[in-house]
Every structure is written in C-alpha cells, then in structure tokens.
C-alpha cells in the first residue's frame, strides 16, 4: 500500500481548536504524526512587554480561551511574589472557589469536545448546557461570561453579590443531580468502553519521561497535583482527594476527569462552609506609577489540564521584562501526541488528542 500524507485539521470536524496534525498513513495505520501548531500564535509574551503590569490583566486571560481563570491566577501570583503584596484571607478563599468553578466549567467543555468527537451528541449537549449555567454564575460574579478579569494582585476585583452563594449551591446541586444520567449514558456505557479502551495508552515511566502532567499523569497512577505539592490560595486549609487510575489509556483519563469534577464540586461546598469574612482587596498600586522590584519568579498552579507555570522576569521598571508561560498542553500536544499516534488508527486521532485534553491556544500563546 502506498504512503499517503493526510492533513488532519485545522478545519476538521473532529478537531477542537485551531490545531493541525500531519499524518503519514498507510491504509488505516499511522506511520508518523507531526503536530503543526501556530495557527493561534498571537505573540502574547512579546506584547505583554509593552504594557504596564496592570494593563496586562485583560490580556493574560485571553491566552487560554477555554479556561482563562488559571491564567489570571498565575499572573497575579507571580506579580504578588515579585512585589511582596499580601492578599487578604477572604480573597484567597474566594479565589479557590472561583478556580474550582472554572475547573468544573472547563471539564464540562472537555467532555463536550470528547463526546462530540466520538459521536455521543446527547452527552455533549448536556455538558454544554450545564457549562452555560456555570457561565451564568460567572456573569453574575464578574460581569463577563468567558473572560472574567477578576483576579488582581492584591485580591479580587469585587466581592460576592447578594445571595450569590445560594444560587451557586443551587446550580451545582442541579448539575450534580444529573450525574447518574451522565453515568448511564456515557461513562458506564459499554460502547464508550470499547472505543476508548487501550487507546493512547501510556505507562507511568513514559509519561514521566515525556513530561506529562495533569490527568495524563494521574491516569497512570501518580497522584501529582500542584494543589497538594505546592499549595496556593486556600487549598491547604481544606481536605480533598486526588482521583487516580492505573490504566493510562483514554478511558481512564476521561474517568479521571469525571471524578475530578465531582471532587471539585464537593470542594466548593467545603470552601463555602468555612469561608471567613473581611475585605477582599488590598490596594497596593497605582497603575501609572507602579514599579515591581527586580527579580524573577516561577509560580505554578494546577489548571484543569495540568501544571500551569509562569516564569516572570522583572528589571525594576513599570513593564515586565520577560514573561513565559509553561502551559500543560505544550508537552501533551507536541510530544506525547506524536509518540502515541505512531501505530494508531486514523479513527483514534481525535480520540487521543482530546483525551489528552490538548487545547490549541495554550500551545501557541
């Protein structure tokens, strides 16, 4: 049989985001896969050097379209570390609740992408609907549905509105009530098991060697979560589990996502029960006259895809000198994907890619 070069994406019904893979196939079997990122390269890191520290906030959340909140958090943490700003306690708890809500929303988005790719449209529409309810909550809290621009160095931008916690709990309960239906239709469905079992299998040593983080690693049995390794915000004050599985294939990755979602919802309830009062913003800067002291920092958070890190260098002026985001999809999408697709079927390309939860804007920045 001949070798054919196929272009999978960027405009492809099975592709989520603007990402492309060049496949060398022979028949149905892939010989070599090359990832082609770069369709969404906006040059954020260079553009951020031209704006002052505060003006960067509305920009930094646009790097990852699906889940902008962890980007804001990591940038705020970096600036707070360099400039030694203290954050009030209530603000840290609010940040944790906000990030967990973002994690649930982002996982629902991933579920939509995955289920759509496989053809389980009902589950896809349901998870998008439930994500919409969460976006309504965000709209009430911050004023925007997708780009929230809520976390600043020194705290958060506004406090909870009246009655917000009740509405949030109600919405989360209504989502939680549908979990048995999700399980019946999708997660426990033998069809899903057949499609996802043994697809994109990765062992723990290979995962560590190729730089995997997040669910990819947790699905191979290692409980590596930055919220436990290097706690930030209010995560060291509440107790929560890290779900893991041992198989390391697409099936276990998706099940880890489901377990994480449920764990996040429980975590939100625990955080809301114990939240302290007080103010939520320590005013410590004037946008036109703020100089961050010289130094560098590497801060990281656990986003819904894995370890999100930020390397920031400041030379004592009012604009950042170098900003470099370490996004989880970078290694997943550029190395692990290529290695996993060798010897796989064409039908499994989308399956593998989305179960690795590769999001194109994160790779390109």
């Amino acid at each position: 049989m001949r070798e054919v070069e196929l272009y999978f994406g960027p405009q492809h019904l099975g592709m989520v985001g603007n990402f492309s893979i060049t496949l060398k196939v022979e028949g149905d079997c892939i010989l070599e896969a090359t990832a082609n990122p770069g369709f969404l390269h906006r040059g954020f890191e260079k553009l951020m050097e031209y704006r002052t520290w505060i003006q960067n906030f509305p920009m930094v959340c646009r790097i990852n379209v699906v889940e902008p909140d962890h980007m804001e958090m990591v940038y705020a943490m970096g600036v707070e570390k360099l400039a030694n700003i203290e954050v009030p306690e209530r603000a840290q708890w609010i940040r944790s609740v906000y990030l967990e809500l973002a994690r649930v929303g982002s996982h629902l988005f991933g579920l939509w992408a995955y289920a759509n790719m496989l053809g389980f449209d009902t589950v896809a529409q349901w998870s998008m609907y439930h994500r919409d309810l969460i976006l309504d909550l965000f709209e009430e809290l911050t004023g925007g549905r997708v780009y929230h621009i809520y976390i600043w160095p020194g705290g958060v931008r506004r406090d909870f509105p009246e009655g917000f916690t009740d509405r949030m709990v109600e919405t989360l309960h209504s989502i939680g009530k549908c979990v048995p239906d999700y399980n019946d239709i999708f997660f426990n469905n033998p069809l899903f098991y057949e499609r996802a079992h043994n697809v994109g299998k990765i062992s723990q040593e290979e995962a560590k060697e190729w730089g995997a983080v997040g669910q990819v690693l947790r699905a191979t049995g290692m409980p590596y979560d930055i919220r436990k390794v290097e706690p930030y915000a209010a995560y060291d004050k509440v107790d929560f589990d890290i779900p893991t599985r041992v198989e390391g294939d697409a099936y276990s990755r998706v099940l880890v996502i489901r377990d994480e979602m449920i764990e996040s919802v429980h975590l939100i309830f625990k955080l809301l029960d114990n939240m302290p009062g007080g103010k939520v913003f320590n005013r410590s800067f004037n946008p036109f006259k703020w100089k961050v002291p010289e130094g560098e920092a590497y801060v990281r958070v656990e986003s819904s895809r894995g370890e999100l890190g930020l390397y920031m260098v400041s030379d004592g002026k009012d604009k950042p000198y170098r900003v470099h985001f370490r996004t989880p999809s970078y290694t997943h999408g550029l190395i692990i994907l290529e290695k996993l697709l060798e010897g796989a079927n064409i039908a499994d390309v989308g399956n593998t890619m989305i179960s690795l939860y590769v999001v194109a804007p994160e790779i390109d920045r």
Partner: protein
Amino acid sequence: MNKKIVAELELAFKDIEVNTPQDTRVEICAREEQILTVLGFLANKGYDHLALISCVDWIEEEEFELVYIITPYLQENKAYIEKGDVFLKTRIARENPEARTAIPIFANAEPYEREIHELFGVKFSGHPRLTHLLLERDYEIPPFRKDFDTRKYVKDVFDSIPVIPEEEE
C-alpha cells in the same frame, strides 16, 4: 532544606555558583559547557521533570540567558527531596548564539528548544528537527528579541502591500 543538594552540587562541580535565594529554590549559574552534566546529575538525584526552558534577552549586556527549570515529580524520597524547584541558568553570547540540546537527558526538551530557536535565533546542536513551530516564515530579526519593533513590523507589513519573494520548489 536543599542543603543536601546544594552541598552535593558544590562537591561534584567546581566552578559553578549555587545560591538559595528562597527557601524552596536552588539557583545554579553554570557555563554553557557544563549544562548537560549538571542536568544529568540532577536527573539522577530525582529532579526528573523539566518544566520549562526559557530564554531572556539581556540586550544591554549583549547576552542571552537560558533558564532550565527543573522540579521533582514525586516526593517519595522525602528525606532527600522536598518540594521546590531548581533554576539552572547559563549565559551565551548574543552574536551567533549556540547551545547544546538537552534531549538526551530530558526527552521533552524538544519543543522548547525548537521554539527558542525560532523566536530568538539560538542554534541547538544535536537537535533532530529545528523547523518552524509557531511562525510560518523567517524574519530578519527573530521576533522575540528586544530589537524587533512590533509597531514598525505592523506598519511595514500591513499598512502597505509587501513584495513576497518567489519561492523555488
């Protein structure tokens, strides 16, 4: 806390500077030739996750600074490794910058080095494919360098009709 690793490093390598600016960070400044040996040493001691390879353009000092950020995956051997990261920094000249690839030690260094090559112009010897990653063509000055003026680029390219040279297949 990292006293053990600091002591071991200083014992194993002469000629490198080791600081602990914060409780959870060890900073190593080494020369470009020593990078691979230090990386190998750290990988053996349990620091097996290469989080990031970054490049900073110090235009006034006419140097690029390559920064390798390495963290431990698992804190099993708690007596030895506690949480924290290691910064390995090295400086290379800005004119014709060159460095060695870290792929033999950390397999996931490949895309980071490709990106630094494309955006800063640093050549990594031994890298299997230094092709375009994010950008689609070559630029006179690699775009992330400090002397690349973004406004001038926009004016030249988008405010006028550029002449695209014919490519030979």
